[in-house]
């Protein structure tokens, strides 16, 4: 019964995909969305039941559906692992997923391809559930590439937009680079353990040499970097905002992009064996957190600012993983899912109100027009900025505190600076969108309207979660959340995490709050108190501003360094193929033809020639003799007479 419950979690949305995908054109949108949302709702209920059972019994369970691949001594089951980590992920994925599905009913209303949208969204749920539920690397990998596929399909949802198609391809290809690294990690695991099942691999992870563990961990990291949009494979995520806003909320903020974090935490037994890899993870995270935040400072597209903020927040999670604060990483993953989904959906509500406008330079003063959306967005901003006691405060502070108390001062400094920037750009976004003078274009201004209830209600739930979502993790490192995840996350390094170092933690909380308030204050000064100051500051350092505005020219650099050379290689090889290789073939053909021409010539002039010479000689002789045969009787008679004379002459005279 319990096993069935587990298997049903991904099966419900799968059924919805099949029904809506194959027969969706036969019935109305109402049936399609009921089916889609209902299936996710059922998954959510099953997840809650599974979570409750795990909470009660504390038992880790594996459920095998069937044997998938069996070749040589490689046996891979399609099987699920239910442990506290999976439970947390399940609740986040199905819970936030359900809310976003409900929101989408209102947001996507009237769009062409409404059913297609929900089919893709459900397919995404299936993949994401496989990803977090799999009990081995290959099931994780199906989900891993599956969510990449859905991301691809949904970014390119507006298929007639060339920019959307390009962004979709870019996202998939960059993910593929990561996936190739992930595949190599899977191979390494198989070579070293002879199995791909987590339980056995993690139980025997201690047997690994440091070098092997580092190799596996770094390959996994490549995969995680691609999926979670970390430096250097982050540039696809801002472009992914071409997709509809619910997609950005679900896939590109709350769930899929956190898969890399989940994967690292899941594999912490291997990462714990590889200090070099851990340091790399931490620095990748730290650099990304800061780097993306700086770009986010000056962007003007509401969704892109949020996208860079997502990249930055994912950086915090990586940083947490890298310093062994796995529970904190998952904690931040959860709270981030709440407030970032809230922010994206509220942004969607703004865009909806403004008939599709995304440029914050053409917003402003919306507080009065769409007060509900404003309030919700503000809650999200307060949460992500780390204002006490909202969700983001607890999770972000825990990561920073862990870095400080474990002596990673450089990383701590980066995280604090990142937090300052986060607070600043989020309040900048809020001020520019909702406060000050309205810069809305006149033809749009008339149509501004608050979003319908089906969009607002899910946001209310998310807003509540953004406020209270941090409390399971209080007090830091000793909260209920930590004890629940202990069976999964306590390892060699993190085992020592639970020691009460309370004094600096309170102090660090104060520092974090001051930082967050400072960012708010700065944003208030620049974008509310003295609106003209912002452009003055930008004008004072034009080079820096341009660099940030153009995202450090990374896209251009990648184009020049990878895309163009690849195209060039293709063209050169194409030329090579047509001229050299095919040329060789044609050369051989030509030689054969030449040879045959030569032998034809020989045949014609030498062999036939010699025969012809003989024949011609014959012919000549014959021609001279031919004259004798004229066919005229008197000639013959004359010859006979002449012959007689000659004969007589010879006989008589001899």
């Amino acid at each position, binding site marked *: 019964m319990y096993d069935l419950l587990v298997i049903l979690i991904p099966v419900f949305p799968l059924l919805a995909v099949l029904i809506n995908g194959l027969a969706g054109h036969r019935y109305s949108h109402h049936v399609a969305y009921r089916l889609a949302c209902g299936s996710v709702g059922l998954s959510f209920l099953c997840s809650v039941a599974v979570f409750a059972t795990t909470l009660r019994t504390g038992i880790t369970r594996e459920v095998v559906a*069937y*044997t*998938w*691949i*069996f*070749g*040589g*001594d*490689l046996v891979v089951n399609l099987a699920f692992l239910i442990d506290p980590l999976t439970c947390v992920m399940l609740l986040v994925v199905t819970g936030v997923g359900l809310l976003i599905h409900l929101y989408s009913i209102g947001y996507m209303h009237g769009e062409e391809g409404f059913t297609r949208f929900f089919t893709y969204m459900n397919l995404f749920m299936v993949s994401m559930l496989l990803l977090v539920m799999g009990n081995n690397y*290959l099931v994780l*990998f*199906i989900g*891993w*590439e*599956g969510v990449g*596929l859905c991301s*691809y*399909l949904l970014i*390119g949802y507006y*298929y*007639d*937009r*060339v920019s*959307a*198609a*390009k962004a*979709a*391809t870019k996202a*998939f*290809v960059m993910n*593929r*680079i990561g*996936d*190739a690294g992930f*595949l*190599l990690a899977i*191979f*390494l695991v*198989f*070579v*070293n353990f*002879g*199995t791909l099942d987590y339980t056995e691999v993690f139980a025997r992870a201690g047997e690994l040499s440091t070098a092997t563990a580092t190799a596996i961990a770094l390959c996994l990291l490549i995969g995680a970097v691609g999926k979670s949009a970390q430096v250097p494979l982050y540039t696809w995520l801002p472009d992914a905002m071409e997709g509809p806003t619910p997609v950005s909320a679900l896939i590109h903020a709350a769930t899929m992009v956190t898969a890399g974090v989940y994967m690292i935490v899941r594999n912490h037994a291997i990462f714990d064996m590889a200090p070099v890899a851990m340091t790399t993870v931490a620095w990748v995270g730290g650099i990304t957190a800061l780097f993306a935040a700086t770009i986010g400072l000056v962007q003007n597209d509401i969704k892109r600012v949020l996208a860079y903020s997502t990249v930055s927040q994912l950086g915090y999670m990586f940083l947490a993983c890298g310093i062994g604060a796995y529970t904190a990483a998952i904690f931040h993953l959860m709270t981030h899912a709440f407030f970032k989904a809230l922010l994206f959906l509220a942004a969607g509500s703004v865009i909806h109100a403004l008939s599709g406008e995304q440029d914050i330079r053409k917003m402003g003063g919306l507080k009065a027009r769409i007060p509900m959306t404003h309030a919700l967005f503000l809650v999200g901003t307060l949460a992500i900025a780390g204002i006490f006691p909202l969700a983001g405060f607890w999770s972000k502070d825990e990561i920073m505190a862990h870095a400080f108390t474990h002596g990673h001062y450089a990383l701590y400094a980066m995280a604090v600076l990142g937090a300052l920037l986060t607070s600043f750009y989020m309040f900048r976004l809020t001020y520019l969108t909702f406060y000050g003078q309205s810069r809305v274009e006149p033809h749009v201004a008339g149509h501004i309207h608050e979003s319908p209830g089906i969009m607002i209600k899910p946001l209310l739930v998310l807003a509540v979660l953004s406020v209270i979502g941090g409390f399971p993790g209080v007090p830091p490192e000793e909260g209920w959340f930590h004890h629940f995840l202990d069976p999964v996350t306590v390892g060699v390094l993190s085992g020592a995490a639970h020691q009460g170092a309370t004094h600096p933690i309170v102090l660090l909380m104060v520092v974090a709050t001051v930082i967050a308030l400072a960012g708010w204050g700065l944003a208030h000064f620049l974008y509310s108190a003295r609106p003209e100051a912002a452009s003055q500051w930008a004008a004072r350092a034009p080079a820096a501003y341009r660099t940030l505005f153009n995202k450090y020219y990374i896209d251009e650099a990648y184009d020049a360094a990878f895309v163009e050379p*690849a*195209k060039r*290689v*293709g*063209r050169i*090889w*194409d030329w090579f*193929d047509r001229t050299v*290789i*095919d040329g*060789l*073939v044609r050369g051989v*053909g030509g030689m054969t033809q030449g040879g045959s021409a030569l032998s034809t010539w020989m045949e014609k002039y030498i062999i036939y020639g010699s025969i012809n010479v003989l024949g011609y000689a014959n012919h000549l002789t014959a021609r001279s003799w031919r004259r004798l045969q004229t066919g005229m009787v008197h000639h013959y008679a004359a010859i006979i007479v002449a012959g007689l004379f000659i004969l007589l002459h010879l006989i008589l005279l001899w």
Partner: protein
Amino acid sequence: MPDLNVQTSGFPWLSVIVFLPLLGAVLLFFVRETSSRWIALIISLADFALTLPLWSRFDPSTARMQFHEHVPWITSPSINYSLGVDGISFPLVLLTTFLIPLCVLASWRSIKTRINEFMAVLLVMECAMLGVFVALDFVLFYVFWEIMLIPMYLIIGVWGGPNRLYAAVKFFLYTLVGSVLLFIAILVLFFQGGHTFDILRLTQVDFDPVVQHWIFWAFFIAFAVKVPMFPFHTWLPDAHVEAPTAGSVVLASVLLKMGAYGFIRFMLPMLPEATATFTPMMVALSLVAILYGAYMALAQADLKKLIAYSSVSHMGFVTLGIFALNTQGIEGAIMQMVNHGITTGALFLCVGALYERTHSRMIADNAGLAGPMPRFATLLVIFALSSLGLPGTNSFVGEFLILIGTFLWSKAVAVIASLGIILAAVYLLRMVQHVAYGVPTEESAGHLTDLNAREMATFAPLVVLVFWIGLFPNPLLTLMHTSVDQVIAQAAPRSPVLTHQQSPTSHRVFSTVSRKPREKRDTQNRPVAPLALVPQTPNDE
């Protein structure tokens, strides 16, 4: 010889399956043009239906040849009509009989002249291809191998595009060169192997390593042209571009498998020492094919050329898997042969359907089709994703097994090969991006019609297979296990003569994967023991 490694069956299944299409071809000359399509469809479907009971009767627990038939043909020298299938050839037989009905359907409207003849030629082609897979006598094999060329030559040369004669002649000459070398190799095997053409018996002979080297080169060229391996591939794009849709499908789906089949069936078991010596070369050429094909595909403006070069890349994976010489590699290679048949065949069908509508195969002329042709766009995306090896689709299983087999052989090679899967995503999604997304061109916008019922019927079985093999590959993999294990056992060098030519690490090539690394090292250090040759009882496995 009593110990022939075979199992017989009461009914001559294989003969019926092989020659039913030929019968159909003869029949087609006596019917009216209007009914020829239906007759070809019925015959090919019947042939497919006949292979299905074989699947349930096929015994996967033995590596023996099954459904064996043996009739003396010529007594001196002893040439026999000898047929049989095992776990290596059976999936390919299934693939062939499965695809021909789809080819008939795909030619329903696109072939407009000499329909009877076209269908007849297609069925002759099927007969020859099936014969190649089931022949157990080298002369018989060679006869089918050569017959195969003629219908393909005609399909390209008669029903092909504007430049068809050039392509047909190029195809014919290329493969003929290989065939001649193959024939010489067969003769050498005959004289060196105790005056027999029996393929099973020849796999038991220990050929002199020097002889093996010479035969290797002949085999190599013969099969490498068919695969095609770099640098013998340039006939392929021309042939594909000029061939009609059904021709492209047969060519890509089945004909290209002949070479890889030859490697597994003949080269590995008969020439183990030479194989061991030349494995690095084969692996290197496979890697070149993977990357070269991918980059070439990236540069193409013609859809058919793009898919043709992607075939070069994908077949590079197949040969890579074969020469990894371990269970995962070879099973993956056979899987991938079937998968490539399904997926690439389907992609050519897509291009065919497109060409019938827009009369252009150029990517630039076919843009924004998701709007006017949603079904077509969906199918194109599905097959492109299958081709790039998305988990859950068929190709992933094959590629994964190949890569894991390769990884066991050499980590560096596997790393380079996995670049191929990144590039596959690049060139296939670039194609999808241009063809499916965006807005349609001016000319095509108005009159494009989506796929009709017949076309959907052609694609539906392929879509089902893409996901079925992707999610439940075991029924296919189970067929192969014992046969593949036997090939691996046979491919282990029997005489220690040439071992000094190998680097110390190359022994690991032949060690099967063991569960723990420590045990594996033991296997590697074990001296190369002469393996039991055959007969193998089923219980050996």
